[in-house]
């Protein structure tokens, strides 16, 4: 029972981090109808900023700079690349993002080399023990931070003019333009927000028990894809639920691996994709996705 509770808590914490990534993914999709395959590289960029700055300016300033930096990188991708293709087919744009991802990831892994960089977080490997259940402080921090950010985001999405413009543009770009919504700005904002969220996610993907920021971090970020897709690509609620499902599934599958040896090892990495496939078989638009959104 103790193991189960621990696995659930860890899973929820990881899930909230995946939800952060998936949320950025969904925001870009809603604002521009583009599936952003460059998301993992945005995340790596955010992590790299934090990792390379924390020694000089301290952890918290480094986190802020990292968030801002990733937001700028996101905005730059929109402004320098995506904007040039405006009016092109959405699938063309999706493929453009694959190109951007390859470029950015290659440059960042070149800089990283074989290093494993610490992000200099203050939590280290300390563990909170309540009764027989113990959980790492980093996981608590991840859950709290992700929860806060997601709440702020959802409130802004619902109540601010930015949110109204974003939702209007998502529903009908032309009508939104008739209302005076600046579509370029909406799209720029979406990319920047997605970058910022990805930087925070990068921090919590690389803290204890993970060794640190390395090449493989962008692979961990890929787990947010099934999260976004199984939730429904155009749904913010879907991103949250999807993230949590992926986190918990992964955690449980990894934790009970020894009892599932007949399936071979490494089930934890596979489980999110398995869940996604099953859910999509039953609900092709994802759990909360809009049905008529067929084009990807």
């Amino acid at each position, binding site marked *: 029972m103790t193991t189960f509770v621990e696995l659930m808590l860890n899973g929820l914490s990881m899930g909230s981090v995946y939800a952060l990534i998936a949320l950025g993914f969904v925001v870009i999709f809603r604002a521009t109808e583009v599936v952003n395959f460059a998301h993992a590289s945005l995340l790596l960029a955010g992590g790299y900023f934090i990792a390379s700055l924390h020694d000089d300016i301290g952890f918290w300033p480094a986190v802020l700079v990292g968030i801002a930096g990733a937001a700028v990188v996101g905005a730059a991708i929109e402004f320098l690349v995506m904007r040039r293709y405006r*009016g092109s087919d959405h699938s063309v744009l999706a493929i453009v993002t694959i190109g951007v991802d390859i470029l950015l990831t290659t440059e960042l892994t070149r800089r990283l080399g074989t290093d494993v960089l610490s992000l200099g977080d203050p939590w280290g490997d300390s563990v909170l023990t309540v009764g027989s259940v113990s959980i790492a402080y980093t996981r608590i921090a991840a859950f709290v931070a992700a929860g806060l950010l997601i709440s702020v985001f959802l409130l802004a999405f619902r109540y601010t*003019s930015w949110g*109204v*413009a974003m*939702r*209007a543009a998502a*529903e*009908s*770009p*032309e*009508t*939104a*333009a*008739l*209302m*005076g*919504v*600046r579509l370029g700005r909406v799209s720029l904002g979406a990319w920047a927000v997605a970058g910022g969220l990805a930087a925070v996610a990068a921090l919590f993907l690389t803290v204890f028990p993970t060794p640190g920021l390395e090449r493989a971090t962008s692979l961990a970020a890929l787990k947010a894809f099934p999260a976004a897709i199984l939730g429904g690509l155009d749904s913010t609620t879907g991103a949250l639920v999807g993230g949590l499902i992926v986190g918990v599934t992964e955690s449980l599958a990894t934790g009970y691996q020894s009892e599932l040896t007949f399936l071979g090892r490494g089930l934890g990495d596979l489980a999110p994709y398995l869940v996604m496939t099953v859910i999509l078989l039953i609900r092709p638009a994802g759990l909360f996705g*809009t049905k008529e959104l067929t084009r990807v």
Partner: protein
Amino acid sequence: MGGSGLVVQDASVGYGPVRALRQVSLEVPEGAVVAVLGGNGAGKSTLLRAISRTLGFHRGALTTGSIHFGGRRIDGLHPDRVVGAGVSQVPEGRRVFARMTVADNLRAGALGSAGSRGTKASALSRVHELFPVLAERAGQRAGLLSGGEQQMLAVGRALMASPKLLLLDEPSLGLAPLMAARIADTIQEINGQGTAVLLVEQNAALALRLASSAYVLDVGEVALAGAADELAASDEVRRRYLGVVDETAAADASRGVDALPVLERWAGRR
């Protein structure tokens, strides 16, 4: 350029190789209601897109001519600047944001307004005064409104930007006659409050009743133009847009109903 309202001069629009408008000139004086009539494919919506600068969404472009509003050239601006200059459009088919609430739809309408919080608040109370139902349904999803209510929302949404000129694309389309008449009354009321209206309609009878002057578009060109009552009296308009379509046909139809033959052996059972 003379005139402080909207002045369209020699505008030609092409969608790729397809010419949709040819040398169209049109004027909407300040505070006036001007109607544009024409059948399907005459270029009515294209004309509005050219004014609101949304041709790009349909891969169209203004190839010649100019469009001025309030003495300022607007045919090089982004759509949001056109809204900022005081021109708001109610798109054809209403196009409310179905997944958003009525209140959020109205907020979206105010996004392009240059005005302060105060002007937006007074715009909202004006819209609620015109359409009390929008206040009642503020929290409801716009997609759940009836067609007529959606049209009211679409008009209200455009009014949120406090426009000096309102572009209306077929506001009576798909509405029951009673609802169309209500929308017509509202247009008159909006105009009475000082907003000029450019009304694009297939329902010529309704449009000519509201407008002071009118243009008839035919295959992308202005075929007829003049004062609304003169056009309403002209043979060509009566024949093409009024006579056959509305009055005579309606009369024919009602006569037809009266004269509906009834089989004799059924007559007794009625």
